[in-house]
């Protein structure tokens, strides 16, 4: 039996992390807390028809009825969500899509570009709970308080890189991969990535060059979030067909998709 439902959720807290970044905790009455890192929810902002569509967000954390999401305000919809205060309501459809598979025998390396940390944070928490060792590469253009939050939670597991050198090494997240791997005592790896398309392409290429499995979480504009509108299709590598980000993804094997 699926636990996908349209939950009438209530905002528990809305933490302002940076100028335009918010961490919102929601209460989903009746939700059993069963969600996989990489899965997402669709938020119906309010009962008016503008904005018309729901907004997809990766699950950032999830514990029983409580679900957290990380929001960056970029447009009208995200601004309206960011303005939600304690006790305000939003309908939440989810959990949707497929999460990151965990290869038990491989050492996980999580590569996050900016807001791409959202699903990987959840994966990091899950791996911690499973007592798995792992590393995170977190890249930003310039450092933000988000990096501070990541440091507080994941500590020495995180390797920081920035485009301008304001935190960690002045490098791109994908370029940091060989540094981590070559120093590592482990021999078998899995890479989990989420972030800008350019970064994902580089990570996929790196993985295929070294024969390391890469899992990417993709973003695309979507209307329904459940696989019927076919709005969020991505090209399937090696065929002329498409896969839907919402239903076939949002997590794909790197070699599966053309991005």
């Amino acid at each position, binding site marked *: 039996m699926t636990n996908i439902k349209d939950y009438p959720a209530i905002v528990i807290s809305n933490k302002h992390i940076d100028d335009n970044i918010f961490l919102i905790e929601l209460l989903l009455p009746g939700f059993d807390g069963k969600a996989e890192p990489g899965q997402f929810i669709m938020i*119906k902002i309010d009962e008016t028809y503008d904005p*018309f569509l729901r907004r997809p967000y990766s699950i950032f954390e999830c514990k029983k009825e409580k679900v957290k999401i990380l929001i960056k305000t970029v447009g009208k919809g995200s601004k309206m969500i960011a303005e939600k205060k304690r006790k305000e309501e939003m309908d939440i459809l989810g959990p949707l899509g497929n999460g990151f598979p965990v290869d038990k025998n491989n050492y996980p390396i999580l590569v996050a570009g900016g807001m791409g940390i959202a699903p990987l944070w959840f994966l990091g928490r899950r791996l911690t709970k499973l007592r798995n060792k792992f590393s995170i590469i977190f890249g930003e253009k310039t450092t933000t308080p988000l990096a501070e939050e990541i440091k507080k939670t994941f500590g020495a597991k995180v390797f920081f890189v920035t485009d301008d050198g304001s935190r960690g090494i002045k490098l791109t997240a994908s370029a940091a991969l060989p540094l981590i791997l070559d120093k590592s005592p482990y021999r078998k790896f899995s890479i989990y990535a989420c972030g800008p398309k350019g970064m994902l392409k580089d990570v996929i290429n790196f993985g295929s060059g070294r024969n390391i499995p890469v899992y990417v979480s993709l973003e695309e504009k979507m209307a329904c979030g459940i696989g019927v509108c076919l709005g969020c299709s*991505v090209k399937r590598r090696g065929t002329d067909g498409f896969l839907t980000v919402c239903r076939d993804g949002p997590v794909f094997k790197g070699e599966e998709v053309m991005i």
Partner: protein
Amino acid sequence: MNIDLTTKIGELRFKNPVLTASGTFGYGLIMEEFSDVSLLGGIITKSITLKPKVGNPAPRIVETACGMLNSIGLENRGIDNFLEDILPGIRRFKTNIIASIAGKDEDEYGLLAERLDRQVSAIEVNISCPNVKEGGMSFGQDISSTKRVIKKVRMKTALPVIVKLTPNVTSIEDIAKVSEDNGADAVSLVNTYKGLSIDISSRKPELGSFTGGLSGPAIKPLALYSIWKVAKNIDIPVIGCGGIMNFNDAIEFFMAGASLIEIGSATFREPNAALKILKGIKHFLKTKKIKAIKEIVGTVNEN
């Protein structure tokens, strides 16, 4: 009070007048996870083409004020896949299955109708898709092509034939009349309005294929007006759609002259939208002590 929600297209009976619009409900299989598909009056499939179609480049969706533009481009796996892999899995739904078809030319429409004959409950002929280069809306914008396509389909099947009309014409009531005169059993309208959205920083269109089709509450008054015009001009049933979000919208469509309705983009916001609307219609009729849905069709007071 027992309310009669039934209605008919030709000899085909519908247990209620709420259908789901093509391209917004898949084939019902995914939607089964969210609602009891068998409670609907019918489902209209994603449009089926002769050969598999990959669809248009991303982005395929852009939100606009109270609505959305889409340019999916009829992505589907073709008629063979539908008949072999999909249809056997959806026959169990206790509702009418209406196959939407889209061809590049009238022969393709004919072939599709022939393959589907006796396989489904009815056929909806999509001559109104604004997002394909060949065929699509260009058929529905021209009286003689509309006529040719419908004649061809009519020749190849005994199933009820519904023609889905585009509002991107000067007078939709003329296209509706031609459909009726050439053997259509019903018309459905409106498909989306052709539209454009531009990203001002890149000066690029926001959709990968430049233009798209507008749907959602933004088009509701336009759609309602078209239905009212068409319903006055023909005797076959009109299936109304275009931005229906709730039972109130639905009742307006019936009063304007629709015998049935299609729920489209509302499903994207609310997977269970069609059934919620059906419930609302029943409640409205009950409250107003109206015994049958037929009693309100085309009853807008024009005096």
